[in-house]
């Protein structure tokens, strides 16, 4: 198993373009390759911009979802590589699980490592998990696991069954109402670097089969967690399932319910009543 250490984050626009151009003819098993960056310093201005878009307060610890922004370019680089069996365009983010082992300070030097695992069979295709581990001072502080669904793709012989269900209770309708504007995708793209065209405009989303631009799942997750600021354990698992796409613009509600020292949450469309996100927060 080889780990490639990169000196700088790869350019996501270039990766998305390369992934689109090399989408055809992919197959086979997951590569063993890992990508890493060492001694990454967080840029306070970038954290502040991210916090503003996701509604986190500017605190002396990183937003719990922020390390995803640091590791995501490496995950995209893995997926954009020709050796990756699934085509990046068309991959749907269906689940994201974060384990924060402790709060991370903005001045900490971080080591990032990403890899792919759990190529699995799903009733409508195959799923793969893009994993990330973030360490500080030699100890792991944060883990991320994003499950992507490739519709119509098939997992290799003997692959396990996909695990995409988050065990969240049915919640009463929420009172926290967000009017999500049509530029929400562009705003999050600016602060996260996730310039996937399906989020940027109606036109670019149509090119990939969506009727309108859709909000980034990780933005919906971040904003839901920002709404729980001050009420989250420092060490926690935050596991969410992304359900129906959140088309822009939309009005949605966030429902929250305490479960022990954790929370259940759901982001739901006001018009259709469909869930966009269901999730759980549990202390570690």
């Amino acid at each position, binding site marked *: 198993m080889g780990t490639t250490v990169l000196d700088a984050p790869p350019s996501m626009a270039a990766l998305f373009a390369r992934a689109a151009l090399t989408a055809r003819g992919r197959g086979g098993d997951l590569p063993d390759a890992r990508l890493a960056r060492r001694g990454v310093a967080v840029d*306070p*201005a970038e954290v*502040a*911009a991210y916090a*503003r878009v996701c509604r986190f*307060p*500017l*605190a*002396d610890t990183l937003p719990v979802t922020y390390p995803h922004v640091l590791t995501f370019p490496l995950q995209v680089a893995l997926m954009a590589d020709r050796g990756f069996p699934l085509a990046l365009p068309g991959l749907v983010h269906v689940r994201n699980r974060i384990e924060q082992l402790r709060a991370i300070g*903005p*001045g900490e030097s971080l080591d990032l490592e990403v890899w792919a695992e759990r190529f699995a069979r799903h009733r409508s295709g195959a799923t793969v998990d893009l994993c990330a581990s973030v360490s500080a001072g030699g100890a792991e502080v944060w883990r991320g696991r994003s499950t992507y669904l490739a519709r119509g793709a098939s997992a290799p012989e003997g692959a396990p069954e996909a695990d995409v269900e988050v065990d969240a209770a049915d919640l009463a309708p929420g009172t926290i109402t967000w009017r999500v504007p049509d530029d929400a995708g562009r705003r999050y793209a600016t602060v996260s670097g996730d310039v996937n065209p399906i989020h940027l405009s109606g036109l670019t989303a149509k090119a990939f089969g969506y009727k309108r631009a859709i909000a980034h799942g990780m933005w919906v997750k971040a904003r839901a967690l920002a709404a729980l*600021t*001050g*009420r989250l354990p420092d060490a926690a698992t935050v596991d969410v399932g992304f359900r129906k796409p959140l088309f822009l613009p939309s009005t949605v509600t966030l429902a929250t319910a305490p479960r022990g020292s954790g929370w259940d949450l759901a982001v739901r469309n006001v018009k259709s009543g469909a869930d966009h996100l269901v999730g759980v927060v549990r202390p570690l």
Partner: protein
Amino acid sequence: MATTRPVPGRRAAVIGGNRIPFARSNSAYAQASNQDMLTATLDGLVARFGLQGEQVGEVVAGAVLKHARDFNLTREAVLGSRLSAATPAYDVQQACGTGLEAAVLVANKIALGQIESGIAGGTDTTSDAPLAVNEDLRRVLIQLNSAKTLGDRLKALRGLRPGQLAPEIPRNAEPRTGLAMGDHAAITAKEWEIGREEQDELTVRSHQNLAAAYDRGFFDDLVTPYLGLTRDQNLRPDSSMEKLATLKPVFGEGPDATMTAGNSTPLTDGASAVLLASDEWAAERGLPVLAHLVDAQTAAVDYVHGGEGLLMAPAYAVPVMLARQGLTLQDFDFYEIHEAFASTVLATMKAWEDPSFCKERLGLDAPLGSIDRSKLNVNGSSLAAGHPFAATGGRIVAMLAKMLHEAGPGRRGLISICAAGGQGVVAILES
């Protein structure tokens, strides 16, 4: 002046405090809002005193420079903090007196038995300032908004001018005189013949005292790092008379102008909070009481037409409070006179020494007299730490309470804070 001795009753205890290091304007906290800073400060206090998920009686805080959207600033900060969401909160605003006034309000409710515990605080940012639309544009927009017909709308739009794009920027100036606070202070400095050298001396001492306090760890349980800062950014431990002498005056006019950027406080960003409680509440939690808030007084002067200096109100407030308590100006172990400008501190002390001021303006038979300078601002004050307007009161209350506690029981400290609008807030703490 007739004064009544208050009936000694329950006194509010100062349990401790927390603040973030103060940052120079448009620097380390340039991206932080008042709410961010106040929330971080409350969370630091919560962590220090184990208040996670706890409900305190009330949280009272404020900001001097405040966005219209921050109408419920303190409550919003509470909701974003680790305090129980069932903790009530309200905002106060009394210019630079905000933080101390907040502490007095919390202490009074505790003394009356209406609450058992409370947090007083303040926050200010001169970086994330509340710019408003140009006043002329605002009037056009209001007219446009209330227009009912297309004709009315077009008529309103005719009022638009390119120059209206320039926003209204909040200024550190008095609305009724148009003068910056420093210009007012310069008038007072001249009137009281406050020299450049004594101002610079006070400034150097402020920096040296604050640096020494940091070095011996005095602030370890008073300050929580924030956004990369661990000490006040304005602090210059190597400040010297020689360096300060090179600065050109920025307030006042002519060759005898004395006030520089060195001996005036810079624009700063920051927040502070103080935990107050009844003795019983503290005892139940095993928290030591640092000091009690004994008394407080506000005063105001007519700096517009009355011939008094803008920042001289504390000189009036202190004797009223002393008379009520049967104390003299010399009955204190520590004096915390907020260093809005070095000249303000010096003019205030000179006024208390002046027989004619004390007789004619304060109506006293004898001057209040002088204070022992070795007891003044011994751990530094605003010239070194900076002065995020509403945060200064909390900085001083928590620091003085700790100083009194360290000095032993029965020690007394005086706080004097001048404020815009010709106001002053003063208080007495006792260990």
